[in-house]
C-alpha cells in the first residue's frame, strides 16, 4: 500500500513538474496568454495595493526603525513632546507632506526639462520572493503610459516602465541587476554605461579608456533613439569611487544614485520629451556651504 502511495506521489510529481516546465517554455517563447496573466493579475491587485499603500504608508518604516532605535532616538524624543491626541494626525500629515514635497520636486525637474509627464503614487514594491527591483505605480495605459517610458523622481532617474495595465504600471528600478542605461558625464561629455547591482550603488563602465573621471562627477542619461526607454539629460547619480586598476581597457567607477530608491512615494513618467534635450541644465546644484559667523571680542583694559 505504501509503495502504491509512493508511486502515485511520484507520478503526480513528474506530471506537475512537466506541467511547470511547459509553462516556463510557453512563457519564454512569448505565448501571449501566459504573458498576459500577470497583466491581468496586476489589474486585479491594483485596488488592493492602493488601499494597502494608504494603510501601510505611515507605518511602513516600523520594522526598520525598530532595529535603528539608537539612530532615531532624537526623533523619538521629539515626537514624545508632541500632544498625544495630535500624534496620529501629525503622522498622517507628515506622510502627505512628504509626498507633496516629492511631487513638487519631480514636477520642478520635469518642468525645467520641458518634459510632458504624468505623476503617479507608488502603491507596491517587488517582494523578497521576486528577487527583482521593481515598484508598482497607480497610473497605467489609461493615463497614456506605455512600456519603455522613462520614470523620474524629484532628484533624477528612477527606472523604466516594464509593463502596464489600464490603471497600474510596473516600473523596473535602476537598481535591478538587468538594468542598463547609457550615461554621459556632465561637463566633459564622456560616455559610459551604468548597471544596476541590486542596491543604491551602481557600476559605471566608460566607453573610452581616455575618459577622465573624478569623484563627485555628475552623470546624466544619454537618451535613446525615439526617447525610449530613456530621455536625455536626466540626472542619474554621482561618482563616489573611481577604479584605477592598471591594465584596464576602459575606466570603471562606482556611482551613487541621486534618488533614494527605498523611499520613493511619488514618481513621474515622461510621456513626451517634446524633442527637447536639456543638456546639463538638470544637474543638481551643489550644496552651498553655510556661512560661519565669527565674532571678535576685544576685552577692554578696565575689565
Amino acid at each position: 500500500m505504501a509503495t502504491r502511495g509512493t508511486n502515485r506521489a511520484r507520478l503526480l510529481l513528474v506530471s506537475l513538474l512537466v506541467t511547470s516546465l511547459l509553462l516556463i517554455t510557453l512563457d519564454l517563447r512569448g505565448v501571449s496568454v501566459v504573458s498576459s496573466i500577470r497583466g491581468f493579475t496586476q489589474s486585479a491587485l491594483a485596488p488592493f495595493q492602493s488601499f494597502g499603500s494608504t494603510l501601510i504608508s505611515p507605518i511602513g518604516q516600523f520594522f526598520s526603525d525598530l532595529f535603528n532605535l539608537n539612530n532615531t532616538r532624537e526623533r523619538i524624543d521629539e515626537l514624545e513632546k508632541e500632544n498625544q491626541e495630535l500624534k496620529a494626525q501629525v503622522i498622517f500629515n507628515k506622510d502627505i507632506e512628504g509626498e507633496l514635497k516629492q511631487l513638487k520636486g519631480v514636477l520642478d525637474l520635469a518642468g525645467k526639462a520641458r518634459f510632458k509627464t504624468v505623476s503617479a503614487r507608488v502603491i507596491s514594491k517587488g517582494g523578497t520572493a521576486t528577487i527583482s527591483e521593481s515598484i508598482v505605480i497607480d497610473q497605467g495605459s489609461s493615463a497614456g503610459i506605455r512600456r519603455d517610458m522613462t520614470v523620474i523622481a524629484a532628484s533624477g532617474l528612477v527606472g523604466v516602465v516594464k509593463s502596464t495595465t489600464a490603471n497600474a504600471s510596473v516600473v523596473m528600478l535602476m537598481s535591478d541587476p538587468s538594468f542598463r542605461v547609457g550615461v554621459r558625464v556632465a561637463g566633459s561629455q564622456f560616455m559610459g554605461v551604468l548597471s544596476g547591482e541590486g542596491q543604491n550603488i551602481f557600476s559605471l563602465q566608460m566607453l573610452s579608456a581616455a575618459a577622465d573621471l573624478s569623484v563627485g562627477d555628475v552623470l546624466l542619461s544619454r537618451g535613446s533613439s525615439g526617447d525610449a526607454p530613456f530621455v536625455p539629460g536626466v540626472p542619474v547619480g554621482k561618482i563616489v569611487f573611481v577604479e584605477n586598476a592598471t591594465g584596464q581597457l576602459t575606466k570603471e567607477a562606482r556611482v551613487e544614485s541621486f534618488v533614494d530608491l527605498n523611499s520613493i512615494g511619488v514618481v513621474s513618467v515622461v510621456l513626451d520629451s517634446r524633442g527637447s534635450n536639456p543638456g546639463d541644465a538638470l544637474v543638481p546644484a551643489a550644496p552651498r556651504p553655510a556661512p560661519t559667523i565669527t565674532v571678535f571680542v576685544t576685552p577692554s583694559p578696565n575689565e
Partner: protein
Amino acid sequence: MSINRVPISSGLLLLIFLFQEAFVNRINFFLGGFALYLAFAIAWILREERSSAVLIGFLAGLIADLSPTLEAPFGLWTFTMTGLAFLIVTYVRGSLDSNLSPLTLSVVTTIFSTFAIALFVIFGAILGQDVPSFSVIARELIGNALWSFVLAPLYIPLAIRSHKLSLSARER
C-alpha cells in the same frame, strides 16, 4: 487529497498572496524583506501527506508566479515549489517527530522558505535570468530567515488552521 480541496486551498493561498502583495511588500523590513506567502505555504505543506503536499506546492507556486513584479518566466515558482514540496515531505517530514512541536515547525519553515528563494534564484540563473550580487542575495536570504522565524507565531497558527479548514469532515 480530494479534488474538493483544490478550490478552498487555492482560495486560502490566494488570500495570503493578496495580503503579501498589497500589504507586506510595502513594509520596509530590516535586512531585506519577508516572504510571508512562501513561509505560509511551506508551513502548510509540512502538515500534508505526500501527494497532497506536491499538489499544494504546485498550487502555491502557480499563485506565486502571478506576482506582477516577477521578472522570472511564468512557471519557475511552480517548478521550484512542486519539487521542494516533494523534497520536504519525502526526506524531511519523515525524519521528524510525527507531532511537530511549534519550535520545530518554525525552524523547518524558516529554513525551507529561505531555501525556496535560494533555489528560485539558482533555477533563474540557469534559465539566463540576471542575478543580483552575492551580498544582495545574502541580505535577502538572511532577512527572510530572520523575519520568518520571528513572525512564525503569527503565521504558523494561521497555516495550521487553513490546512484544517481545507480538509473534508472525513479527512479531519
